[in-house]
């Protein structure tokens, strides 16, 4: 049964990948990419990787689809046909692919317990982590304790990517003392937003009921990560997606009023700092960097405290970076639209004068 599910899901993935190559409408491509994300996440569940499935579900199917949608709303949705003949590309791909397949012939078979991957450090993690770290979820204990330095690097990469997006896409704020004309424009935009809200009455009410639940669930995932699938990465993404939902239905200006830009930037930095400072504290107490047993008299309690703190740091950083990225894109899009509509109005005025 399990191998049947494996075969079928992978066959779906290949079918969708070929359909993505074939399609020219980028919006359809992105819809298919959403299905692709959902499918690969189900595949991860079938392969026992519940934590990975958790992350892929929220990231691959949710956030990356959203970001790509906002982007193609700015850049246009149809792709030009490929002009030159793709024979060269096809030849390169086929040769590389057949070499890789030749390479797989030496690999240990799928699922064999004697494969070299399972011999080196994994037995130590599986057998000893409950005594050394005291957390039932082995993935969390490896992520947050054994390989904490590695994870620190990943968090810094995420932070840097967020700052990069901010540097590329941040829009210049309007000066506060706007003249009457501009103020009227802003009021008009707000009016348009409000009228759009009137149309989505059902959606707004259901969303209002769902959002507190999503926040609660994000906290559950954050703090239950030691005992089940979950942890800072997943919780951060879920937290951010609740904010996306709010921003999409109630308009960016309302969301901006709820979430302050400088506060969210500060929170992203605080997450990284919290993570790093846990390491520094254990260094000051005379143990190795990220050796949490230095945090408390009882080593297991120290491990628990350390994992809790760094997961909190990861959650803060991931959530705020995702919000920063999404807000940058959405702001960019709204501003572009306002410029466009102003341009159209000006054109109309000129035409009327003529």
């Amino acid at each position: 049964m399990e191998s049947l599910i494996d075969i079928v899901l992978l066959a779906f993935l290949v079918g969708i990948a070929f359909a993505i190559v074939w399609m020219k409408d980028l919006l359809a491509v992105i819809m298919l990419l959403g299905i692709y994300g959902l499918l690969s996440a189900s595949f991860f569940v079938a392969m026992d990787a519940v934590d990975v499935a958790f992350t892929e579900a929220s990231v691959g199917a949710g956030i990356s689809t959203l970001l790509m949608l906002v982007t193609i709303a700015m850049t246009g949705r149809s792709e030009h046909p490929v002009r030159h003949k793709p024979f060269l590309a096809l030849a390169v791909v086929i040769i590389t692919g057949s070499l890789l397949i030749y390479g797989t012939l030496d690999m240990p078979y799928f699922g064999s317990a004697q494969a070299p991957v399972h011999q080196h450090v994994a037995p130590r993690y599986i057998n000893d982590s409950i005594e050394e770290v005291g957390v039932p979820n082995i993935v969390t204990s490896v992520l947050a304790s054994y390989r904490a330095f590695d994870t620190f690097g990943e968090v810094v990469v995420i932070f840097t990517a967020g700052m990069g997006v901010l540097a590329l896409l941040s829009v210049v704020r309007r000066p506060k003392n706007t003249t009457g004309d501009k103020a009227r424009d802003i009021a008009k935009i707000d009016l348009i937003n409000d009228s759009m809200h009137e149309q989505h009455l059902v959606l707004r009410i259901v969303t209002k009921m769902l959002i507190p639940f999503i926040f609660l669930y994000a906290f559950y995932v954050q703090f239950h990560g030691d005992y089940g699938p979950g942890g800072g990465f997943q919780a951060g993404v879920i937290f951010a997606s609740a904010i996306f939902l709010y921003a999409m239905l109630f308009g960016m200006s309302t969301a901006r009023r709820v979430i302050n830009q400088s506060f969210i930037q500060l929170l992203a930095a605080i997450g990284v700092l919290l993570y790093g400072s846990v390491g520094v504290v254990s260094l000051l107490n005379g143990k190795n960097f990220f050796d949490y047993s230095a945090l408390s008299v009882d080593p297991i309690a120290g491990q628990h405290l350390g994992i809790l703190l760094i997961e909190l740091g990861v959650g803060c950083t991931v959530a705020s970076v995702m919000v920063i990225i999404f807000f940058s894109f959405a702001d960019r899009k709204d501003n572009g639209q306002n410029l466009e509509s102003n341009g159209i109005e000006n054109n109309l005025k000129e035409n009327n004068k003529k």
Partner: protein
Amino acid sequence: MLIAATLAILIVMVMAITRGIMGPTLYDRILAVNMFGTKTVLLISLLGFVMGRPEFLDIAIVYALINFISVIGVLRYSDSSIFKHSNQQKK
């Protein structure tokens, strides 16, 4: 019974993927994605039972939420002016 239900859901997934690839309109594709997401929630719940560790239903909850959010996102951002513009051009 669990296996029969799982097979049924896999078959429905094929149908949803076919509709998602065939189109022909944007809304058909969104419908296919939405349906696919719901079926994924069911598949994950069933997989937990088939594989004998049903305590991981948290993932299915996330799927339900994310599915909703992505449908709202598609509707929100596919209504923008660029798309209307291209529609008008077509007419």
